[in-house]
């Protein structure tokens, strides 16, 4: 049984092909056409696996661009897919924190990958990957360097949650001569605190899985763990959580139909 999950995020499109317990993955920038990015990751996967599209039994699309993929058999939200995918990557996780390009989510599950409750940030970009991107740009560094630059630094207080205001706050802190690493640490802490506030509204969680692009940032992870007082699991494949979830749900769907 061969299934595919495609997660079309606002910045990156990820895909996973599952064939029994074997799996393959690919990813690429979403660019301006989510539809094309979805098509391309599928073709790439088929190429890698030496398969034709007809060999695929079921495709589930997820992520913000999910509805544009007309070749998919079904579209499901990233909330459902991330929960299932995170459980696959960190078995038993009952709290999934997913910080993506445009939004951040906290998802509570039953410990078997089924959503029981969730919360998502509202319209603005506060606490998302985009927030980190804007702050990095304001400091003239790349997002991927943030964690390194802030290592071991005492965080400075960043009081604004709004991306626009926080940007000017960062610029004035730089002008005051505050060390860049301290500002970055402050930003990491503020992103983490925002998500923690969202999580604590709903519950506690025992085992936390951190997914999405921002999970790669060690600094945010550390502050999250500190504030929540629990271990946080970031799997090397955490960026693929949504795509994994979609492929797994597709497989379960077929098994159920048998």
């Amino acid at each position, binding site marked *: 049984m061969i299934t595919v999950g495609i997660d079309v995020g606002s910045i990156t499109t990820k895909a996973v092909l599952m064939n029994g317990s074997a799996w393959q993955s690919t990813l690429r920038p979403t660019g301006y056409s989510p539809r094309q990015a979805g098509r391309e990751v599928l073709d790439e996967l088929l190429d890698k696996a030496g398969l034709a599209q007809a060999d695929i039994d079921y495709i589930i699309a997820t992520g*913000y661009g999910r509805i544009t993929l007309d070749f998919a058999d079904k579209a*499901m*939200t*990233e*909330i*459902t897919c991330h929960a*299932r995918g995170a459980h696959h990557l960190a078995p038993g996780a009952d709290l999934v924190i997913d910080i993506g390009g445009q*939004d951040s989510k906290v998802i509570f599950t039953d410990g078997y990958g*089924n*959503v*029981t*409750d*969730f919360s*998502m940030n*509202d*319209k603005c970009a506060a606490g998302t990957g985009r927030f980190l991107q804007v702050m990095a740009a304001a400091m003239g560094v790349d997002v991927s360097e943030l964690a390194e630059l802030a290592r071991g630094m005492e965080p400075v207080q960043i009081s604004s949650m709004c991306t626009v205001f926080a940007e000017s706050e960062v610029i004035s802190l730089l002008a005051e001569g505050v060390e860049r690493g301290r500002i970055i640490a402050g930003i990491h802490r503020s992103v983490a605190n925002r998500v923690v506030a969202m999580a604590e509204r709903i519950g506690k969680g025992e085992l936390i899985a951190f997914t999405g692009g921002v999970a790669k940032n060690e600094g945010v992870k550390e502050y999250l763990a500190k504030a929540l007082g629990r271990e946080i699991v970031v799997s090397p494949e955490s960026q693929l959580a949504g795509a994994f979830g979609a492929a797994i*749900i597709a497989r*379960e*769907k077929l098994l159920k139909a048998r």
Partner: protein
Amino acid sequence: MRPESMNIFDDLRGQNMVVLENAKQSGRKVVGMYCAYCPQELVLAAGAIPVSLCGTKDEPIADAEKVLPRNICPLIKSSFGFAITGKCPYFYFSDFVIGETTCDGKKKMFELLGQHKPMHVMHLPQGADRPGALPWWKEELSLLKERLEETLGVTISDDSLREAIKLSNSEQLAIKELHDLNKFDPAPLSGLDLLTATFMKGFNVNKLEGIALVNKLIGEVKEVIEQGGSPFQPDTPRILLTGCPVGIGSEKLIRLLEENGGSVVCFESCSGYKTLDMLVDEDERRDPLEAIAERSLKIPCSCMTPNEGRLDLLGRMIGEYRVDGVVDLTWQACHTYNVEAELVRGYVKDNFDIPCLHLETDYSSSDLQQLKTRVTAFIELLDKRWT
């Protein structure tokens, strides 16, 4: 199979406008109201036509924001915008407007609105459970009665009040019967149709005609049930909508829920059970004003403190309608419902163990995408047919 009468309801707001204009020309008076606490019985007993002025459309909000602060609830802004732009014929035709001190935003908005129409603001007690509440509210009703008599040049007799109570009650019973039909599974009426049919109450010039129309719809819905029809698939997740008032124009959440695989079977809000669930006592020996006062103080609105009645009502509805999930809507900057959301969430979780989704939004379509993701994820979580 959509009941045929729904086509009539779809056009009713527009059609009634013409009827209203004619009625005005023949000398009838029109009284505008904003809230469920406003006793339409008094307006009816004064021989006037009660109309609902509660703003449910996004369109006039930009105009309202020229005067009002931006961070107040869209319902207040929409109501005010309609009033100052003259775009709402119902406000335009109103001879007299009744407000009430429910939430702070509304009561202060009425002070500005008073510059545009003759108006009277009723002062509500904050908590219906206080011994002074009923006499106070009854006193407020007599004050309103005086104001109505004075402004409209009529006298409101106890007999006309009793008659108006009966008329109002029968209207309410008819609408409640319609709502109750959605206890069938799958629901015979979509949430959007249920809302559309209920909403006409506020624009209906002739109450008896309105009741007859609802009864006709009830007959058709019963047929739908007999034939086993429904706009939904079997097993479509059944959702209860609670929170801030929703009307035609501000129904975006109902649409999203139903377009993405849910069935909004009932409303615990002012467009639904919150006001349908209790009648005014028709006992002839009673003081009709007191009977009216007693009934409206039972309305479980978040402006009251405490507001335990809302939780009791929610609990009853969750059971009676056998819902799979609860969606709690807060209009942006509505503090009372927003804070109360925490109580609702805890109550639903602890007592029924079904999912509850709280959403905060306004009348605009700027957040449709984000809302859609939340709503769809919520339905995926309720859906028994999938995963």
